[in-house]
């Protein structure tokens, strides 16, 4: 289903439908995360991916119009690049450990410590929250810094519009004269 949604995203040229479909895609992936035991990730994806990002896309469409032109060039070169990259990645997975095996190396570095010690060291039952807010607190601080920087960037980009629109208007005027 995710594959079908992705392919539909590729084909549809009405951007409004694309954005709605991207929201559905996001919600489907949230369901997949729930199945794979990542409940915290699932509700973040449902709220942020399917909720906030759809709203942001719709706002951008309202400001920028929602029709996409037909691609002007042949799709052969991008298709070739994609197929070669995909084949290289599939070749790379041959050495990866199998899905769901408890002996995979990823499960035996710090994860054991988190699961065994976090009830004593932190004292809350949700290990994901304990790791997020305490063991990897600096990560979370860096994340909030990125979000702050992004908010400032968006405000600068959108609020600086008046001055630059004037310049674009002048350019249009020059073109009209010439």
């Amino acid at each position: 289903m995710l594959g079908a949604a992705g392919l539909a995203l590729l084909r549809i040229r009405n951007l409004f439908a694309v954005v709605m479909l991207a929201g559905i895609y996001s919600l489907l992936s949230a369901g997949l995360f729930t199945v794979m035991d990542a409940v915290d990730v699932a509700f973040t994806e449902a709220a942020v991916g399917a909720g906030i990002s759809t709203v942001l896309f719709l706002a951008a469409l309202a400001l920028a119009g929602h029709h996409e032109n037909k691609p002007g060039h042949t799709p052969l070169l991008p298709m070739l690049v994609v197929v070669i990259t995909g084949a290289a990645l599939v070749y790379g997975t041959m050495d990866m450990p199998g899905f769901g095996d408890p002996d995979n190396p990823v499960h035996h570095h710090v994860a054991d410590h988190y699961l065994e010690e976090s009830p004593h060291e932190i004292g809350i039952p949700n290990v994901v929250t304990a790791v997020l807010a305490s063991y990897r607190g600096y990560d979370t601080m860096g994340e909030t810094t990125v979000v702050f920087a992004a908010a400032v960037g968006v405000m600068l980009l959108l609020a600086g519009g008046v001055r630059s629109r004037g310049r674009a208007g002048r350019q249009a005027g020059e073109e009209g004269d010439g």
Partner: protein
Amino acid sequence: MSVDLFVSHYNYWVVIFLMMVGFYILISRGNLIKKIVGLNVFQTSVFMLYISMGKITGGTPPILLDDPHGEGEAVGHVLYSNPLPHVLILTAIVVGIATTSVGLALAVRIKEAYGTLEEDEINRVEAQTEAAE
């Protein structure tokens, strides 16, 4: 043997398929907003890669079943999925929405400045502006 390989690596191949769909949208479509959607698809596929690596067959979500102030007896006997990829991906989702919003703001500004969101039309406007100067 090959069936084994297929079953145990199926998750990686789904992820790679989605990743390549996103990549293809990104490099073959000229519309800037469509490119950002492609980037989002690509990004979500990476999230799935991490989460699928954290899954243990028969495991439960990493929320401890016992009273946290008890002696944690259940911890040794219950199989929990790995919490670490979940934490990393929570951070990545939030950072991803931040970068998406900056990209959309840039797209809106480009639309204001050039009157279009198509890559080739933007190039044409640029060429005309340079020729006029």
